[in-house]
């Protein structure tokens, strides 16, 4: 257990103040690995579509812990630490592989796809010399295993024996919202990897923060698209940790005024020269053109018009975070929709028209908070609670994050 006694008491009351140490403190970061990432929470591992075949595996992370997620010969999912039981080397280097056994390169110990140690090289010695002692029991040595469960093609794992089953953990609202976008067989479109110069929580807060969207990101306003915005809201689950923010925008049919503006072309400012980029199709039939969903602590599901992706937030140190984006469409996409997804992938991501700023803004806080130990940030937009709210000028889901984080961290 890390000694967190030097941290100040949480500035009360409630969730409207967040001490800057939470982004900077090394002992706290280590405590998160233990209490949160190896504790009672489900963590996204990969999409089932990334692991389509029996007898195959992929590498992933739960917090900093390297993990292998696999399908055995019968197609059942498993996950276990990517750490050899012998000396601790990575069992699998690289992205993954296929076969019946995974072998560590260091001393060739090998494992089945459930993570059981099956083979120890030279276990009986060489010519009667050396080898493992008589009583060495392979079944008592192995990487730690995770519980695994999937919902709508999303594979989650947990080291905790206590956390309730995945569906209960997600709750009915999140399950329904995930099912809304992930109801059909998925086709992978590709991945982006991005390094963020900030603590992982700053990125998660940013995703949950609907207040900043129209202020930091001016793509829609600059190109006069924001008048299309109709309605939206933020829903927070009871734990506080999961959220959905959504809005409806009329982008499924071309706007005539806008098209006329576009014809004036790209030397004339303030109009897109080629507005095909923002012509979404109402593929889910409910007019919702934006749905950003988080599952506590580090999973994001994104629908930005027809750009569909999941994001996995991987802490890489107190002030470094890797963001893994997996873009997808569906097997039954027609060619036009398939192309539209590729065009709209421009809207978000490391170079996203709408939101490239999100890659940098966490670093601005990280740098701004240097020397601010003992001081707090203010999270009071939309009140002090964590209830679902209409409109987007609220930080209710950011407070929700801290509610869930404090509960699991015991702080």
């Amino acid at each position, binding site marked *: 257990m890390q000694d967190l006694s030097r941290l100040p008491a949480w500035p009360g009351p409630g969730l409207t103040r967040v001490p800057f140490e939470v982004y900077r403190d090394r002992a706290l970061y280590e405590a998160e690995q233990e209490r949160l990432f190896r504790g009672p929470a489900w963590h996204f591992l990969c999409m089932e579509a990334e692991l389509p075949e029996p007898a195959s595996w992929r590498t992933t992370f739960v917090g900093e812990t390297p993990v292998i997620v696999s399908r055995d010969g019968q197609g059942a999912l498993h996950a276990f630490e990517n750490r050899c039981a012998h000396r601790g080397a990575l069992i699998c280097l690289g992205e993954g592989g296929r076969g019946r056994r995974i072998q560590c390169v260091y001393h060739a110990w090998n494992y089945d796809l459930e993570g059981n140690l099956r083979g120890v090289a030279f276990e009986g010695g060489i010519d009667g010399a050396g080898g493992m002692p008589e009583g060495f029991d392979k079944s008592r040595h192995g990487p730690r295993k995770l519980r695994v469960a999937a919902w709508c093609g999303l594979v989650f794992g947990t080291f905790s024996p206590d956390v309730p089953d995945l569906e209960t953990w997600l709750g009915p609202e999140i399950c329904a919202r995930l099912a809304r976008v992930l109801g059909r067989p998925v086709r992978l479109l590709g991945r982006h990897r991005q390094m963020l110069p900030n603590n992982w929580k700053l990125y998660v807060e940013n995703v949950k923060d609907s207040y900043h969207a129209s202020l930091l990101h*001016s793509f829609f306003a600059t190109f006069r698209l924001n008048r299309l915005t109709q309605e939206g809201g933020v829903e927070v689950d009871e734990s506080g940790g999961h959220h959905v923010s959504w809005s409806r925008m009329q982008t499924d049919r071309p706007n005539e005024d806008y098209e006329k503006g576009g014809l004036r072309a790209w030397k004339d400012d303030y109009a897109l020269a080629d507005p095909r980029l923002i012509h979404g199709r109402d593929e889910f039939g409910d007019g919702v053109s934006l749905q950003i969903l988080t599952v506590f602590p580090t999973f994001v599901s994104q629908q930005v018009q027809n750009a569909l992706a999941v994001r996995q937030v991987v802490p890489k140190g107190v002030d470094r975070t890797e963001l893994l984006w997996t873009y997808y469409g569906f097997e039954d996409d027609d060619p036009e929709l398939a192309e539209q997804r590729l065009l709209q992938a421009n809207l978000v991501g490391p170079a996203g028209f709408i939101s490239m700023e999100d890659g940098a803004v966490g670093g601005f806080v990280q740098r701004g908070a240097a020397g601010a130990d003992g001081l707090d940030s203010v999270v009071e937009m939309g009140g002090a609670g964590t209830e679902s709210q209409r409109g987007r000028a609220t930080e209710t889901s950011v407070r929700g994050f801290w509610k869930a984080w404090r509960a699991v961290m015991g702080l």
Partner: protein
Amino acid sequence: MSGLQDEVDGLFARYAMAIDDDRLEDWLELFAEDCRYRIASRDNVEAGLPVSVVYADGRAMLADRVSALRRANIYEAQRYRHVIGRALVEAGPPVTARAGYHVARIMREGDVMLFSTGEYRAAFDEALRIREMTVVYDNARIDTLLALPL
């Protein structure tokens, strides 16, 4: 052939200098009207996965990218410094070329990092304007964000 080689190398030099000088409007002029421009990771390209970090179908979309950088997007002041290797040119038609690059990113604050390495895969029209440009980057991870084009 050496004439064509020089022309293609010269075009890559103009491409690099236009970006590094922050003359993105001049950079646009190197592209054909019906060009396609993509920035995609080597991992995706080799796996046959189609998603790009930047994708413009036509010069108008590329122009939108430039005007968004000028007017809409917020990013810390930064410059690139390209070093592009001698192009490997195929006379075609169409003329195609591959060339390796290093791009350093220089932040106003003073930090310089090797931001990206990779290769340009280009195809040209008769006037040697860029019809197809796929920037295949080797660095699996993009640091912070990718604002300026590679």
